[in-house]
């Protein structure tokens, strides 16, 4: 029973990681940029959720504002930050991205204050009973949202004309262009979808913890980088598996090794160990 419960908790954490990491690996696959500022978009999503819910009293409205708005913010980051430096070596974009991430954290501090915010009234309460297992409603929603959205993304990428064009562009942008695919539109789409998914994760984390603060993205930012390396840079399926594996690993680790080190230390020990054995990641590059 304990094992089942730990696995479930791990999958909840892991599906949260997956929602954030997919956007990161998509950007890497398309542009070969390590988009560190992605974690800032996750934080932005969380802040919008809390602020709008507290102002308007509706979590649904807050989510409907946060997700597309953060998607647009992702597109703006591509247009204003990355596009002008695309022809430079990749580390230029990486440094720019780290710089932007720091700016975003300081921006949150200036706008929302340094101490963090909470929902005035906890908008989701109660729990769901799954046989003998009991889950908070928010935890159940996290799993449903992650699997639902990522499943929808898989269908979109695999079954639609635009999805096929997207994957073709990732493989060979020049040839894709040669057959009439507008690769710049593909990039915007890529940033919109990836950022919107990070915003969903932000909203869910805000609800789970009932707390958002300016630096809530910093641990995820480097954890996500490790996850996408583990999954094989640019490899979406690998990233999903790596996210879930890490979540489960953390969940068991905190119980059995929690007296030696904390959750994040366990996570990174696991990542280091796996990468020592398989430096190319679990599944190789896409």
């Amino acid at each position: 029973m304990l094992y089942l419960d730990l696995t479930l908790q791990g999958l909840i954490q892991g599906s949260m990681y997956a929602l954030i990491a997919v956007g990161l690996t998509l950007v890497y696959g398309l542009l070969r940029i390590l988009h560190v500022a992605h974690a800032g978009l996750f934080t932005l999503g969380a802040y919008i959720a809390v602020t709008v819910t507290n102002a308007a009293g509706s979590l649904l409205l807050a989510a409907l504002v946060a997700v597309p708005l953060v998607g647009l913010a992702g597109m703006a980051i591509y247009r204003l930050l990355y596009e002008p430096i695309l022809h430079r070596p990749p580390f230029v974009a990486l440094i720019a991205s780290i710089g932007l991430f720091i700016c975003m954290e300081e921006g949150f501090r200036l706008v929302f204050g340094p101490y963090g915010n909470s929902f005035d009234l906890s908008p989701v309460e109660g729990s769901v009973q799954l046989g003998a297992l009991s889950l908070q409603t928010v935890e159940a929603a996290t799993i449903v949202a992650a699997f639902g959205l990522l499943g929808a993304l898989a269908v979109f990428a695999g079954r639609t004309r635009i999805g096929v064009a997207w994957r073709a562009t990732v493989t060979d942008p020049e040839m894709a262009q040669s057959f009439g695919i507008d690769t710049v539109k593909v990039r915007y789409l890529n940033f919109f979808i990836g950022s919107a998914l990070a915003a969903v994760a932000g909203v869910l984390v805000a609800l789970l913890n009932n707390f958002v603060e300016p630096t809530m993205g910093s641990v995820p930012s480097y954890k996500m980088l490790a996850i996408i390396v583990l999954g094989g840079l640019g490899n979406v399926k690998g990233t999903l598996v790596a996210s879930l594996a890490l979540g489960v690993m953390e969940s068991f680790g905190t119980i059995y090794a929690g007296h030696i080190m904390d959750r994040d230390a366990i996570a990174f020990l696991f990542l280091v160990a796996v990468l020592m054995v398989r430096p190319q990641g679990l599944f190789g590059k896409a």
Partner: protein
Amino acid sequence: MLRLEGFACGYGPITAVHDLDLEVPAGTVFALIGANGAGKTSTLMSVAGHVAMQAGRMLFDGRDIGGASPMQRVTAGIALAPEGRRLFGDLTVAENLTVGGYARPKAEMPRNRDTVFDLFPRLAERRGQRAGSMSGGEQQMLAIGRALMAAPRLLLIDEVSLGLMPKIVDLCYAAIDRLRADGMTVLLVEQSTQRALAIADNVCVLESGQAVYRGDAAEARGNPAIIDAYLGLADAAS
């Protein structure tokens, strides 16, 4: 249909081809031949819009397309089966064809796909297979098929026979012959002079970025000394 006048192309400060004049009449097969590094592929990629034109004019149906993007060219009716084939390896055969027809209206797709499957029945059998996992010959068929999905009037094919078994090469050339019979114009790059002369209506021999012979393929076939003079024994292996 395609006309190059005083054409030069290259990469940055380097010129790969200079002062080239050639005319590809509608409904014919035109072969660019020559040794490695002579500028054949650069010329073809420049017609497709991927290598910068540095001088001269490029006319397609009398319209100057020298400044057009690759996207505008495929819409105008020029499609490319590039060197090394450059298929979308993770995508299936059917998905590669979908991308090939991306510039055309969606409604046209089933008809164009049937035409491709009719030309290369092997592709119909393999439609669900990952392109990257197919044999070289099948990949070449798919590269040509993908270009045909754009319903082009001018088809550009680079290195038709490179690395393929003779039987597969025969199959590809039979397909090109059939396309011509249906009115298609083809500009191809070929390292095997024999193969090129056997199918082409016109040939142009490039050497170090310059045209050293240009003329009727039948005439060159009848007088091998012409080609030998320019290509020497370079072609002995094929």
